[in-house]
């Protein structure tokens, strides 16, 4: 699917550029895009290095296990196929908590760490497991309480009430998260509950 989208962006973009006479702009945009990709990654280095260092301390100190025990029921429901005491659960929980608090920068490294732990349970390292898909679903739709960046932008443009969108954001994310969990369950069921005898 990603293969197709990627190819579509480039090929369709090029075809349109021919008709709109923007071939030169497209060339420039391609290199500009590559540059942005590297810039974003370099921006990520400081955040990843810092948070993964912090998270290692939390892990070594036993904090992640504590958190996992506390929120176990919810995660058991969402990730039924991850063993009860697996470290992945701790990272999944920290990732979810960070997302809920709107700490996007902190959520990404923990999500990556969770993926790495889930990968250890993966029989085929190039194919996503159901648990990985669920983690991704929760991340893309994640419930947000404090959309900090947006509030800051609204303040910039002198909104009478910059935080008035907190309530609507919370409602919208509650709905999208519910949808993500339901759709994920449906696909998981459809993909994995067929009788395996035929294969």
């Amino acid at each position, binding site marked *: 699917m*990603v293969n197709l*989208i*990627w190819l579509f*962006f480039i090929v*369709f*973009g*090029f075809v*349109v*550029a021919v008709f*709109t006479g923007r071939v030169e702009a*497209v060339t420039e*945009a*391609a290199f*500009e*895009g590559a540059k942005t*990709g*590297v810039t*974003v*990654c370099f921006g*990520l280095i400081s955040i*990843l*290095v810092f948070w*993964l*260092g*912090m998270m*290692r301390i*939390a892990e070594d*100190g036993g*904090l992640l296990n504590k958190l996992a025990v506390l929120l176990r029921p919810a995660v058991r429901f969402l990730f039924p196929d991850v063993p009860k005491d697996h470290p992945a659960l701790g990272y999944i929980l920290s990732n979810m908590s960070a997302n809920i*608090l*709107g*700490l996007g920068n902190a959520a990404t490294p923990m999500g*990556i*760490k969770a993926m*790495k732990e889930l*990968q250890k349970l993966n029989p085929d390292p*190039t194919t*996503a497991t159901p648990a*990985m*898909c669920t983690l*991704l*679903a929760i*991340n*893309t*739709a994640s419930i947000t309480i404090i*959309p900090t960046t*947006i509030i800051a932008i*609204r303040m910039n*443009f002198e*909104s009478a009430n910059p935080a008035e*969108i907190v309530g*609507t*954001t919370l*409602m*919208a*994310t509650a709905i*999208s998260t519910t*949808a*993500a969990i339901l759709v994920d369950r449906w696909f998981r069921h459809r*993909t994995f509950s067929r009788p395996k005898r035929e294969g």
Partner: protein
Amino acid sequence: MYEAINTISVWAIPAIIVFIPLYAYFKKVPVYESFVDGAKDGFNTAISIIPHLVGMMVAISVFRASGAMELLVNLIRPLVEAVGIPGEVLPLGILRPITGAGSLAFTTDLIQTHGPDSMIGRIASTVQGSTDTTLYVLTVYFGAVGIRNSRYALKVGLISDVVGFLAAVFICLIVFG
């Protein structure tokens, strides 16, 4: 309420930064060594993401600069306006799952043009705050562990993005209408 949320967002990170090492220290963890050890992981991870991100950013930039994005928006526009969604916010709905920086730029532009307290400004704010950049999350998370077959993950992400976008628009229309 706003005060409370504001206080939480200001104190959350410093509290975490102080609490984690302090707690670990009392559990007899060599905190600095632990930090450096984990931090090395972070560096390698960031470097390993570069090819994935460069590939995706190039494709998106080509798509936007060529005018293909515009074309797509103009095609869908009459359809969405028929159900009451302001056409101006539609490109945001399309951009949001694809590019975080791009959609943030678009949101800023909408807020600047229509004002933060206009309906379009409120909808844009809510949409930007509600869903995440699915393609980015997928690229980074799966790229970091080397997953090539993402199974149904993208479909689930995009479906929940559509639900999130529609929910954001209609909740705003009801709450602020």
